[in-house]
């Protein structure tokens, strides 16, 4: 057994004070296997030691929340005895090192978090951030990540229905790959991870254990340096076919009464799954590692416990149900092995070749992981930028330029590589405000969106946190869905730096406030810190995955203009806010200024109004106003219409034209309203105490404003052209 030297301790990412705590807990020095187990259990990735204190402040309850954070995924009630189970999780570090496998296994991991709880996955989403398009690695990373997400999801047969993608130089050395899965379960058939029943068998199912991914969780908890390439062996390799078998086998067994508890083996593999199940059940486990199905010979206890081989699950089975369980996994040609027994000792006892190789108390490891109250400073407030201090460009030219910029260009090149229709329930495909997926066999649907505007969060983490939640709320409302709950994926730099910690603290405060005021609780989430390379941190990126519900899917609203001669109505107030806007960045080369503030009470009223109008069938099309402002939103509605229906807009004289067109004021929607319904729509807005203004008419095949006009065909070419040209392929056809 190797000597435990300060170097060995440091190479496991364990700080000297943490090692002192280990000595206290054990009353002796750990052996190497035990040290390895401590290191993954106490890694930032598994323990949330820097963020725990602040995550506790997020609202997590509502009458429809069945299970909040703490389990594999969050669970909400959607009526009729059904539940939606969902979560978003990062796979940032591995995806940078090996983009295809990193992204693929990210999808595999989040799928397992959801079907572990008894849900059949019905939709995948993602939130991706890449570096500057001109950075030499960006194209390679984009190609690999998109192919990896598609390669996994397409094979498993779960539709990837949407997401978001941004480019910014701050992600040059740390891309973000956040994957989200939404699943459907019967409310009375939800499975949890707490072990129960002393003497019950602990069962391992799925793929064999290999030497891949050892110390992935530890890697994901440190900054990148120049030698990150050498960490390639810590990246796992995905096998989506086995995942498909695992989904079917688990769901089949879940239809019997055999399973007491179940937990997937994700980060830190067998270690975290076994400790978590034992800790939640207040029990101990005795495990014989010789029984673990292994891919390679001669694996040590250390390697078995720390392997992050994919597509594996750990279960506690009812006594007498072993044969039934075995037959199901044999049908699906998956490994099945009884590897241990539950004990009342509260200890994890591991044996290899007949000898005890680790004997650790469970709760001190699982529960007493360090919790830090790291010092933080709130960033200085940025000045509000007045429209008169921002140059006015021709609106038509500016519109075209914005629609072709990397952050607004069409993502068709991406989502055409994802099977977004398999399972036959995708009612709104990628490209709209939110994906709409029917609940199979019913008239109900879930709407799903992922949102955050990192440049706002950088400029003001508190406002940016509020805005991310509000935008998710808005996107769900824009298709007609009632927003129910969110999952969050908090991506930041090194929390040991007070200014980064300040971003974390302030954005969580903002998110929490918005979630509370919008009745939109957080039910699951994931934190990814240390997204820095050579001291350069990413833009703070707390991604929000929002889920909403529709009772009648046939009523969902879409973005596309439907006919000429309709009124275009703008909901919400426009002040022409240009600080931290895309206009300011793309046309003026300035990344600065206070971001647009969110008025949550108005946000809520506007959402209620829009949902009611959609439910009553009073509008023809609906689109929220976000990046790029009003003119971009209107252009997107025109570009989405098959007939390329245009719009004539009447700008008010009270605001500078460029501020009206491109200001990113929050809480706004653009509606297309049939002339005959206009009076009642405006009345309804008044009843909701919400500003609504007719700003123009649909018709023609151009967007015209302020005496300038631009053909929609030109806008489509600009918008569709960027990504295929960047990735060096033929233009995506539509």
């Amino acid at each position: 057994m190797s000597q435990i030297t300060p170097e060995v301790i440091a190479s496991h990412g364990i700080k000297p004070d943490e090692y002192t705590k280990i000595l206290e807990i054990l009353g002796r020095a750990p052996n190497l296997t035990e040290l390895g187990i401590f290191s993954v259990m106490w890694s930032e990735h598994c323990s949330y030691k820097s963020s725990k204190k602040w995550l506790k402040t997020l609202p997590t309850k509502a009458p429809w929340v069945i299970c909040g954070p703490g389990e594999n995924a969050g669970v909400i009630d959607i009526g009729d005895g059904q539940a939606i189970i969902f979560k978003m999780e990062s796979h940032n570090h591995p995806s940078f090192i090996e983009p295809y496998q990193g992204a693929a296994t990210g999808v595999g991991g989040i799928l397992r978090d959801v079907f572990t709880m008894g849900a059949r996955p019905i939709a995948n989403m993602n939130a991706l951030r890449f570096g500057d398009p001109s950075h030499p690695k960006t194209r390679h990373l984009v190609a690999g990540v998109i192919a990896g997400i598609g390669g996994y999801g397409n094979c498993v047969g779960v539709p990837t229905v949407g997401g978001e993608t941004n480019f910014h130089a701050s992600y040059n050395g740390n891309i973000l790959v956040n994957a989200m899965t939404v699943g459907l379960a019967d409310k009375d058939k939800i499975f949890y991870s707490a072990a129960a029943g002393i003497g019950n068998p602990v069962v391992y199912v799925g793929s064999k254990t290999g030497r891949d991914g050892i110390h992935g969780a530890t890697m994901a908890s440190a900054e990148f340096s120049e030698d990150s390439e050498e960490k390639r062996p810590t990246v796992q390799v995905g096998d989506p076919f086995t995942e498909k078998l695992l989904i079917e086998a688990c769901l089949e067994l879940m239809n019997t009464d055999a399973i007491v508890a179940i937990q997937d083996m994700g980060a830190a593999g067998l270690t975290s799954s076994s400790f978590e199940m034992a800790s939640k059940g207040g029990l101990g486990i005795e495990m014989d590692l010789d029984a673990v199905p292994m891919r390679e010979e001669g694996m040590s206890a250390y390697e078995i416990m720390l392997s992050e081989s994919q597509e594996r699950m750990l279960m506690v089975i009812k006594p007498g149900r072993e044969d039934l369980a075995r037959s199901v996994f044999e049908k699906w040609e998956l490994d099945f092995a009884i590897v241990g027994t539950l004990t009342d000792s509260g200890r994890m006892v591991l044996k290899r070749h007949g000898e005890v190789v680790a004997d650790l108390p469970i709760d001190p490891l699982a529960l007493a992981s360090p919790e830090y109250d790291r010092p933080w400073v709130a960033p200085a407030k940025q000045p509000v930028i007045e429209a008169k201090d921002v140059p006015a460009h021709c609106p038509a030219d500016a519109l075209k330029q914005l629609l072709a910029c990397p952050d607004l260009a069409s993502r068709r090149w991406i989502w055409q590589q994802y099977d977004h229709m398999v399972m036959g329930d995708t009612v709104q495909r990628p490209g709209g405000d939110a994906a709409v997926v029917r609940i199979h066999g019913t008239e109900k649907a879930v709407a799903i969106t992922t949102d955050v505007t990192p440049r706002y969060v950088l400029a003001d983490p508190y406002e940016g946190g509020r805005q991310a939640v509000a935008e998710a709320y808005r996107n769900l409302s824009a298709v007609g869905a009632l927003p129910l709950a969110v999952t969050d994926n908090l991506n930041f730099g090194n929390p040991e730096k007070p200014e980064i910690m300040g971003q974390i603290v302030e954005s969580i405060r903002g998110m929490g406030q918005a979630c509370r005021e919008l009745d939109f609780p957080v039910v699951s989430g994931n934190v990814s810190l240390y997204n820095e390379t050579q001291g350069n941190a990413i833009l703070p990126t707390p991604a929000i995955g929002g889920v909403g519900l529709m009772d009648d899917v046939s009523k969902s609203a879409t973005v596309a203009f439907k006919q000429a001669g309709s009124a275009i109505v703008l909901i919400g107030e426009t002040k022409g806010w240009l600080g931290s806007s895309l206009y300011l960045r793309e046309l003026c080369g300035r990344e600065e200024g206070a971001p647009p503030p969110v008025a949550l009470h108005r946000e809520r009223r506007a959402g209620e109004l829009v949902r009611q109008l959609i439910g009553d069938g009073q509008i023809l099309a609906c689109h929220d106003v976000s990046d790029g402002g009003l003119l971009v939103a209107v252009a997107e509605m025109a570009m989405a219409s098959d007939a390329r229906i245009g719009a004539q807009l009447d700008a008010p004289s009270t605001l500078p034209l460029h501020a009206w067109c491109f200001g990113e004021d929050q809480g706004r929607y653009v509606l297309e309203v049939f002339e005959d319904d206009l009076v009642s729509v405006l009345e309804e807005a008044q009843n909701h105490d919400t500003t609504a203004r007719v700003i123009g008419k649909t018709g023609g095949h151009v967007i015209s404003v302020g005496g300038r006009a631009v053909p929609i065909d030109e806008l489509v070419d600009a918008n569709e052209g960027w990504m295929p040209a960047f990735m060096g392929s033929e233009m995506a056809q539509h």
Partner: protein
Amino acid sequence: MKAAVIVFPGSNCDRDVAVALEASLGTKPLMVWHRDTQLPDLDLIVVPGGFSYGDYLRCGAMAAHSPIMREVKAKADAGTRVLGICNGFQILTESGLLPGVLMRNRNLKFICKDVFLRVENDRTDFCRYYRSGDVVRFPIAHAEGNYFVEPHAFREMEDNGQIAFRYCDRNGRVSDASNPNGSLSGVAGVYNAKKTVLGLMPHPERLAEDLLGGSDGKLMFDSLVEALS
């Protein structure tokens, strides 16, 4: 009409096609597991889309040698209608039930989108509700749909009316620009010599309901029900 859907462990469009069949037929099709060796009396066998056995090497190559495919071949030889969609088409070519091969798409990427197809032969049990020359919209979702067959075999297939569908634009024009994957002559689907077996890469079951964006695909299932009931 009695219909069955073959289920491989990696099939993932089995439910989708069962839903579409049931909507046209009124009853659920029989779902048959890949390890079964016997099929009852049937009018239609569907080999659905997906990734039959993971398909990491050559799509459909392993499935072609599965226990159930021996029985499917026997039934097909006896005249039972067989429809292979996407991975099902790949399996039928690998099994020798249909001529030709399906190679990687020419852009080497998975492509999922709606395409327009021109109906090339309406005098079959699969297409009696279409008219030759009709333009229909079905989705594709594949990485290996680039159809190829030897030139002399292709000429025979054309002469024999074995080309079922070609990729085209919305006006029915077949050109390189309307060809999503590089298929020979824009071929999207082919029949066997007797027109009792159809394989196609596009998914009729995915646009068989207006709520999902269109119902051109429903006519194929309606045709089969009409012809085989």
